[in-house]
């Protein structure tokens, strides 16, 4: 069945089972492999993408449910928050194995888009769905704080 998906600003037609999780559609059929498979049950957050700006677990979202909506993957993340998060990630050497980090970055960017100055508790709450087996959590917290500061500075404190 033909499904029209808008991913990273580009409309594309796919001939796939409408029940196929969005994760496998974007990985196997659009060859966008930055989004990762970790559990298939929305338990680990490795597959996090944005749908209309909201962080969403693509491993349990049927591809048909994403029709007519804007899907953003790590490859298309271009918001100021996304950029600030990625720069903070690099500067604080957050990644270790790196496999979960696309999902972490997508969740963190969504957090900063809705909360420009998150506390540690806000971060823990927003990021608790993203597992990192390398336990880079201490640096994730620090990097989100650093990204928030960067955004605040570039928007004159009104971030």
């Amino acid at each position, binding site marked *: 069945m033909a499904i029209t998906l808008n991913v990273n600003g580009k409309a594309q037609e796919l001939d796939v089972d409408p029940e196929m999780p969005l994760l496998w559609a974007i990985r196997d059929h659009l060859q966008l492999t930055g989004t990762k498979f970790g559990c298939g049950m929305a338990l680990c957050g490795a597959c996090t993408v944005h749908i209309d700006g909201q962080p969403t677990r693509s491993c349990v979202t049927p591809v048909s449910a994403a029709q007519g909506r804007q899907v953003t993957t790590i490859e298309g993340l271009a918001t100021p928050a996304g950029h600030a998060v990625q720069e903070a990630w690099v500067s604080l050497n957050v990644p270790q*194995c790196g496999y979960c980090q696309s999902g972490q970055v997508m969740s963190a960017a969504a957090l900063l888009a809705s909360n420009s100055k998150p506390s540690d508790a806000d971060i823990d709450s927003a990021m608790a769905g993203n597992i990192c087996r390398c336990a880079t959590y*201490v640096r994730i917290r620090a990097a989100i704080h650093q990204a928030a500061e960067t955004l605040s500075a570039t928007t004159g404190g009104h971030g």
Partner: protein
Amino acid sequence: MYFRHFEDNAAPGSVPRPSDLTRREFLTLTTLAGTGLTLGLVLPGCAPKSQSSAVATADRLVMPFVRIAPDNTVTVICKHLEAGQGVWTGLPAIVAEELDASWEQMRVESAPAQVPLYGNLAFGGKIQGTGGSTATANSWQQLRQAGATARAMLVAAAAKQWNVPAAEITVSEGVLAHAGSGHKATFGELAARAAQELVPTAVGLKDPATFKIVGNEKLPRLDGRAKSTGKQQFAIDVMLPGMMTAVVMRPPRFGGKVSAFDATRAKAVPGVVDVVQIPRGVAVVARDMWSAKKGREALTVTWDESGAEKRGTTELMKEYRAMAGEKEAVSVVRRGEAEAALAHAMHRVEGEFEFPYLAHASMEPLTAACRLAPDKCEIWAGCQFQTVDQGNAAAAVGLKPEQVFINTLAAGGTFGRRANPESDYIAEVASIAKATEGRYPVRLIWTREDDITGGRYRPLYYHRATAAIGKDGKVAYRQRIVGQSIVADTPFAGMIKNGVDPTAVGGSAPEQYDLDHADVSWSPAKVGVPVLWWRSVENTHMAFSKEVMIDELAEAARKDPVEFRLSLLGKHPRAAGALKLVAEKSGWDKPFAKGNGRGRGVAVHESFGSVVAQVAEVTVSGDKISIDRVVCAVDCGIAVTPDVVKAQMQSGIGYGLSAALTGRITLTDGHVDQSNFHQYQVLRINEMPRAIEVYIVPSTNPPSGVGEPGTPPIAPAVANAVRSATGIRLHSLPFDLTAARRGSSQKAT
């Protein structure tokens, strides 16, 4: 995991994969590899007998561990797997230091599978593999030499080109200069000329006091950006033209075999291409992962379970307890007169300890891709045992090992899981390629359920221990360990000496403390559940009982836990040093505000050549344990990349906390009870301590391990902190305060 000794059982090595090399480079490299004239592999007593031309090419300098290109990039050929532990940063740092390169010009790529060239020297050089926290330690001299040799050749080339004495040439930040003549050149500009130089037989290495890159606190990870932008490629991301995706249905109990299967319904699932039997189960091959999964759900397999393990973990633990009471056991350490000393003790503590099976649960589920031709097999995976994987893949497809080409990709975690003697997931993908006759490249993906139920766990263990102080102040220690051997019945069985498997029972109290009387013994168990090394291996459980028993003994004797340990570390100065540093940095000598469930505890343990001491501060609220702060001191010799060392301590602590707080695999009637992260719970960000402070003990010793040693001390440090806060003795993992409050036979006397 690690190896003290092992059999000469490695698969023969292959020649390098020629894809990235010109024919001439390839021929030269293989020729040199065959004669031992390879740069950076000048082992003591194996110096080249004669000088030879360098690996000359048209425009670049190509050596086994370093390649310098006209575009001024310096690429380090990494023989080790990058699985997060930072070898893609640390090993290039060693080369860059001796080369006097700039960090910005450094690149890294994985080496092909080839021994002895890329063998792990800690494994005798006969196996190419990563484990036992050996990557930096075994590469240290090798890569310093490689960097210094390349530097010497660049200098020699510059001296000729500028017609100046080599001794007057300086090298800094990737630029060679001659002050007198004003000449300057980059590495890239001199690479072609340097390749024509003779390979020096001896090169001087730097005085560590002058290091600029090694020891640099601010060094960015070379893989940091790719891993922050989704660009890092893992095995699961490999896309080959025409590639299919496979999943495998495996036996529901360990040791089961396929009796028969009906693929009719599976083949009717749109997208399913093939259903084939392989030695480990039945594979469903489809055009994408979703179709493969749906195909597997529609597959019917009848299993022969005559040889399957049908016991559950409750029965196993009951058997282990009984075995602990049996007189016959393998002696591990025997010293002094333990029985008599324990019988006449002034202070005495006893404990029983239970440790569950644990899954590694790396974030990237096991994945590998394979492309098979009649005379060639290519593998893409996060290979941790390259030459073992090569041999196992060769056996699976019926080719010679040298016909198997291993492409090692970054691994999305491993924690030991990818280093298994049977190369399980790699043998599987090779078997699928064989069964489908190489009609298409195929990628095998394990689902999370396959991973959690798939075995190769940290073994189940039971410990029974007694520790005592006599009137003479001497300490006696008796311990029985019951559990499976990791290496028995594998090609690594040679590690077992006099019946003692160091991967099961190493790191005991009398090995790590100056104890006068000791009797440590082991009862090996035979169970059909496959087991494996799990980040820090035997230290996951041996450090726990040791550090809890010693702490309780200090308490019984009314001694400070740090002072008591220091009194037993006279022959272990590095452990004493790390312990003193952690005590100082944590403010151990200052009053600690107890009450409201707060407590603090300490632990120290040596593993993989390094010592780590940790102080944990906790709050116990009801039956919930929160870890508020962890202070960590590590002595790992020279810290090549201090920020990576700190990251590995943070990581080791987080990984150990998963096991302390929630990690548990159980079996009922031989079936694994957990399947995904809702049942096999791992540490999340809200459970991670807000503060983890890491301090590195200054050292001039050669580097030792950091990937694993951060894990062992955290669980006992937290248990000791909880006891300090509540008086409750936590002896079994994961911690269950409710059960511990109910009490047990464990008591101090």
